[in-house]
């Protein structure tokens, strides 16, 4: 059979692979070096809690800026313009909640996992079970999205269009991730995140500089030129790039869906377990504050870069070329790099994008394993009496299981519409975790039943509503296609309903319970969270 439409090949796959291999070799060397002097059990989870605020801020930036943030946001701005910016702003403003309400009290009251804080003054088992369940669900869904995304990225970056070869690459990513986690623990993973954050932000900075230079450093002019290119029917989609609602404005329901997504975007990140866990890798609340500040500066600058890159890609590469490339909108950033600096530059940027996936999945794996070993194995199954060394052994085995599941899930989900996986992870984090975290920290009366009800209501309502949403069935862009239709919930994103429901359930559960909560425990927690007393900081020995 003769195929008339050949998949276009961009850049040089050999260079892309070489850059990626270089990153893997360099980071593995770092991971092995920093994990030499590992002694205590807690080091596997928190890297010994010895990272400085700046180092940890870089690592948070790394965790925060997944491939979705780099390739996805740049692509969204290139194709949808204004609406892509809307998305990145929401994801950025979310850090305000982390800084003002969550980071420091989390650091002061917890040790390893989110469940430590949620169960601090509650009945241990039910709350830990609930918190561990939502942690595992969120981490796994997020992991799946990253792994599936890796498949699509491979098609573009390494010139691998054969599905079996793509599966092989997904497997390779999974194996590398397990190796990082097993050898390096949290310390090694944190270093990988830091290196990747520096590479990603500086790579984006260089590209931004080149785009702006080509335009006389006139952002207004760049926006206009991108708009012109988009309106031109030979290069673009014919839509106005600078007008809101190009992507989300089709009907009243899609507009409301976007409002729902915005809520998930700002409330979700402070409930993402792998971001929360980052506040335990520093010694004091003050360092936790510094990490949040570093992350806010870097993530903000990065999203400003993506605005320039998206507009630059629309102008220089052209929307039709981007959409026709393997990987679609996700290919905007690598194609822009090719346009700006040739094959080697594209290789570097592609290698960085790939490294991003690798680093984020390693962070997710360690979060999931820590939660399973610390919350489920030790606290629930062994009544908190497990030997710390045994607990870490369980965490290591778990990371292998998580890695294998992620590989299989990633292969199965390869090529699927993964946007809903990301929005599901955010919606679950926003509804299952954040209400319970805020109540626990700031409402003394909040008790075990309130916490359990809030977590499960948020978790179940978010999952159920998304299953019956147009993201899964009944629309052209849905996962099952237009033919299958069992959608009765009109919004793509459930947060607008599930977040208020979780807050309500937390309140109803609390006030209907006879349990008054342990008043003394609540007071102790409040003093600890506000002052950091007893958080075991910086006592040299």
């Amino acid at each position, binding site marked *: 059979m003769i195929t008339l439409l050949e998949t276009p090949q961009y850049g040089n796959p050999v260079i892309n692979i070489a850059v990626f291999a270089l990153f893997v070799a360099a980071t593995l060397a770092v991971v092995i070096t920093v994990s030499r002097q590992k002694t205590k059990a807690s080091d596997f989870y928190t890297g010994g809690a010895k990272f400085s605020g700046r180092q940890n801020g870089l690592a948070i930036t790394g965790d925060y800026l997944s491939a979705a943030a780099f390739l996805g946001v740049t692509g969204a701005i290139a194709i949808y313009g204004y609406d892509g910016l809307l998305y990145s702003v929401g994801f950025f403003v979310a850090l305000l909640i982390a800084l003002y309400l969550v980071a420091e009290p989390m650091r002061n009251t917890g040790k390893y996992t989110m469940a430590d804080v949620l169960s601090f003054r509650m009945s241990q088992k039910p709350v830990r079970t609930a918190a561990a369940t939502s942690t595992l669900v969120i981490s796994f869904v997020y992991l799946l999205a990253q792994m599936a995304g890796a498949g699509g990225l491979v098609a573009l970056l390494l010139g691998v269009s054969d599905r079996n070869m793509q599966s092989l690459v997904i497997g390779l990513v999974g194996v590398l991730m397990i190796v990082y986690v097993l050898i390096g623990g949290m310390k090694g993973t944190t270093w990988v995140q830091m290196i990747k954050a520096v590479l990603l932000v500086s790579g984006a900075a260089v590209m931004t500089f080149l785009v702006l230079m080509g335009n006389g450093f006139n952002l207004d002019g760049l*926006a206009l030129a991108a708009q012109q290119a988009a309106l031109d029917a030979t290069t673009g989609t014919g839509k106005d790039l600078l007008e809101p609602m190009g992507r989300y404005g089709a009907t009243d329901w899609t507009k409301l869906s976007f409002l729902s997504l915005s809520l998930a975007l700002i409330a979700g990140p402070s409930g993402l377990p792998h971001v929360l866990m980052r506040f335990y890798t520093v010694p004091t609340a003050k360092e936790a504050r510094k990490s949040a500040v570093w992350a806010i500066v870097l993530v903000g600058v990065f999203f400003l870069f993506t605005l320039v890159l998206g507009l630059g890609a629309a102008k220089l590469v052209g929307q039709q070329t981007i959409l026709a490339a393997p990987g679609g909108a996700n290919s905007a950033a690598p194609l822009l790099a090719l346009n700006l600096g040739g094959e080697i530059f594209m290789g570097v940027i592609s290698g960085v994008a790939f490294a991003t996936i690798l680093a984020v999945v390693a962070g997710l794996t360690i979060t999931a394993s820590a939660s399973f070993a610390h919350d489920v194995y030790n606290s629930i199954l062994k009544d908190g009496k497990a030997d710390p060394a045994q607990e870490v052994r369980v965490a290591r085995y778990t990371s292998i299981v998580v890695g294998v599941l992620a590989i299989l899930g990633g292969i199965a989900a390869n090529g699927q519409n993964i946007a809903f996986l990301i929005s599901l992870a955010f919606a679950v984090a926003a509804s299952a975790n954040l209400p319970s975290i805020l109540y626990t920290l700031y409402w003394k009366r909040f008790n075990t039943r309130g916490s359990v009800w809030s977590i499960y209501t948020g978790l179940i309502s978010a999952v159920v509503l998304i299953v019956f949403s147009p993201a899964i069935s009944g629309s052209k862009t849905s996962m099952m296609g237009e033919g299958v239709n069992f959608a009765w919930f009109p919004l793509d994103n459930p947060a607008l309903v599930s977040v208020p429901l979780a807050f309500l359930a937390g309140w109803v559960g609390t006030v209907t319970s006879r349990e008054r909560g342990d008043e003394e425990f609540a007071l102790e927690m409040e003093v600890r969270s506000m002052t*950091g007393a007893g958080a075991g900081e910086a006592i040299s020995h």
Partner: protein
Amino acid sequence: MSQGRTVDPLDSVDSRAVFVAVSKTPEFRELRSSFRRFAFPMTIAGLTSYFVYVVLSIYAVDFMASPFLGMVGLNTGIMLGLFQFVVVWVWTAIYVNYANRKLDPLAASIKAHIVNEGAA
């Protein structure tokens, strides 16, 4: 509570009574209300700014697509979006300044008191 990250002097004593007593002191109440009176309104204000921008983007498309001070490319909506970045950075600076100047000294003196009591 055996699995400490580092040595915690409070693990070795019956510390709850100390914490409960501290929670009722005027110093702690001042710290608590200084934090809440500052952090809650600031968070709400920052999020309000964001939701105003989102709702205008959804329901006031023509206004957001209108030129901003003569700039047709960087229109009202894009400038309002960029303004959110400014809000987050300014809010961050305010937080750090307030925490360093007002909250940290209060927390440090309470903490010193707790450690003394706990170790006694």
